[in-house]
């Protein structure tokens, strides 16, 4: 009970103003539930022009950081619980649930999040986790696909991410995905919108700087889906991309578009070596 009150107080403090919150300790470590040790800072992969890559967690205030250290404090875990029910519920014309094919989520989905987006040989395409979930729904279950960045999609992604927490992101960038990866890279460095800003302008050239009240991170996606205190729900990768592009006064791309799929592959690869954290907590 005491713990619950503390959490509520912390969450409120975070909501009241990020800039006034305590600065995060540069050397703070993220250990979830006292047992899952997360790599939140590590040497950058060769294809990333940094010395060190850092999880978005390292840029948040202590009040926000602490919410991710225990699943009882992490509001994103509520949606994981909901998705466990969905996992076991038959839907669609085939009368199947996820469990009908994949049985126990904890064993069958272990390590899956860490390698997505990845090449699907049969379909001959780069698939995000969301695309794979919808492929199962449509073609295995005969159910309607989820809207790409909807709440049930984010919840299912969170459930699958949890099974890889602490494992290093390890997305392939060569072979059949290389063309898509190059396209994602080009998008990352394109200056969009009336403000003419690229992802790199903010997340490569200016990470660790304040932009208004926001402490700019490297824009990593190892923590997705992420529970944001700002909108009190789980947010998908493409939902976040859309928000960032919109903020450049640009016409955004749509969640699930080929452009955002390519961008997701590229951005995910910039985090190779960081731990899968989803669902993370951000402001």
């Amino acid at each position, binding site marked *: 009970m005491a713990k619950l009150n503390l959490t509520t107080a912390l969450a409120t403090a975070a909501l009241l103003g990020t800039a006034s919150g305590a600065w995060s300790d540069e050397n703070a470590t993220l250990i979830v539930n006292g047992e899952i040790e997360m790599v939140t800072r590590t040497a950058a992969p060769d294809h990333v022009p940094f010395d060190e890559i850092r999880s978005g967690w390292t840029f948040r205030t202590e009040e926000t950081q602490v919410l991710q250290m225990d699943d009882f404090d992490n509001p994103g875990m509520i949606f994981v619980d909901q998705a466990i029910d969905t996992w076991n519920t038959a839907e669609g014309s085939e009368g199947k649930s996820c469990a009908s094919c994949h049985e126990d989520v904890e064993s069958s989905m272990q390590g899956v999040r860490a390698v997505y987006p990845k090449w699907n040989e049969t379909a001959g395409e780069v698939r995000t986790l969301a695309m794979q979930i919808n492929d199962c729904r449509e073609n295995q279950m005969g159910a309607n696909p989820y809207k790409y960045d909807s709440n049930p999609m984010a919840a299912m992604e969170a459930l699958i991410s949890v099974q890889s927490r602490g494992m290093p992101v390890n997305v392939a960038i060569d072979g059949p995905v290389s063309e898509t990866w190059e396209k994602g890279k080009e998008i990352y460095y394109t200056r969009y919108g009336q403000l003419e800003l690229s992802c790199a302008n*903010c997340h490569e050239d200016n990470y660790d700087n304040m932009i*208004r009240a926001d402490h*700019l991170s490297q824009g990593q996606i190892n923590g997705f889906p992420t529970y944001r205190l700002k909108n009190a729900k789980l947010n998908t990768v493409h939902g976040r991309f859309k928000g960032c592009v*919109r903020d450049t006064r*640009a016409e955004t791309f749509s969640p699930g578009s080929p452009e955002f799929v390519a961008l997701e592959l590229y951005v995910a690869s910039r985090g190779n070596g960081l731990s899968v954290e989803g669902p993370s907590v951000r402001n």
Partner: protein
Amino acid sequence: MKLFRTVLVGVGLACAATNAVQAAETAPSNVTHDDYGSVAASLTGVAGDPARGAAVMTDRGLGNCIACHEVTALKDAPWHGEVGPVLDGAGSRWTEADLRGIVVNSKMVFDGTIMPAYYKNSGYVRPGDLYTGKAGPAEMPTILSAQQVEDVVAFLLTLQD
């Protein structure tokens, strides 16, 4: 914001009939930068108002300059960023023409800078309609009006060491 702009344009048109100076407002495509990016001529011929310039600089939907710059004189407005240099003393470091060039299109002064161009209306990739995420109109407005640029320049000139 849209309404405000319409009012400004309306006033501009009304004056145009009677006021030769107002009619001389320079269109974005007609602004000339010198070799250093400076713009010598006023965009409107009407002296800038520093108080209005200060308001433009702190308004999120207009200049939003403090998102990136710290300005001691504007410290009452919340959240100053640190992406750009502190602007204290900018009026001593730069001439009026330099500052106009920087606000009109800072890329003419600082090659490849992150700072947006405030008096420009073409050459964008996927320009949007303000912060809606939707496609912008065929004729994009400038971020700031010509007079707002003059007001901001007038305010920057008050920032003396």
